[in-house]
């Protein structure tokens, strides 16, 4: 599994489509994205990470960089999103962080 992370609107999808030569249709079939939003509703994060890691490409947006939210629900959601990313990175063969459209491989190497 290739795990792609990075800030909001950083060009994560464009990057992986370009790197692997994927059309939008292929991308939609082979990737799952915005997985940070799945974390909030999931009581069992390792199970979610296991399920996601069976996909080929998993994309999460970094959301932990701002001030800790005062709202308990938002706070828990942000915490879960960060934990899920760590679990996904553990399970991934390759981890790439995309910032300003530029990739940086944090783990493994890209199959291309």
């Amino acid at each position, binding site marked *: 599994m290739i795990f792609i992370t990075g*800030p*909001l609107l*950083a*060009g994560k999808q464009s990057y992986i489509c370009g790197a692997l030569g994927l059309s939008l249709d292929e991308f939609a079939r082979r990737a799952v994205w915005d997985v940070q939003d799945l974390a909030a509703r999931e009581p069992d994060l390792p199970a979610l990470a296991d399920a996601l890691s069976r996909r080929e490409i998993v994309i999460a947006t*970094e959301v932990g960089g701002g001030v800790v939210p005062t709202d308990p629900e938002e706070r828990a959601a942000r915490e879960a999103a960060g934990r899920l990313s760590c679990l996904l990175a553990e399970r991934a063969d390759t981890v790439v962080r995309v910032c*300003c459209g530029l990739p940086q491989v944090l783990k493994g190497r890209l199959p291309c």
Partner: protein
Amino acid sequence: MFTLITGGSASGKSEYAESHVLRLPGRRIYLATMRPWDQECRGRIARHRLLRRGKGFETVERYTDLAGLELPAGANVLLECLGNLTANELYDPEGGGGEAVLRGIAALAARSLHLTVVTNDVFSGGASYDADTLRYLRVLAEINRALAAQADAVAEIVCGLPNYLKGGPVP
């Protein structure tokens, strides 16, 4: 040559950008884009002026339409920062939107010996914003990606230290 520098607030990106420009020989121009709206802005500007003191920068203030700015050719220009400039072009009555930012940077790059642009990473704190803020983020993100693609070097500053995403530091 064109270098883009990004980083979160108070990550040390200004200090790094200045030290990067100081390694370049020749005339140095600091292009400031923050409008001195209030006391806090003025304080921030004063702090930055103090940081630059004695480093041989000529300060030029310009809030919109960089393409129409007549800077001396062949200088090392440090522009700070893209977050302010983008807000000015989007929200000022005389602003020209995101297009004006890109036009302005292209004109500056053509005129400068080495252009260094500081931008702002405001994209790691979630997406729970109102529509207008999201529009601003979309425009700034597009500009960041376009400039990163054009740049010879891109550095993300973390705790004052550069993480080069493209190219490397000037020798």
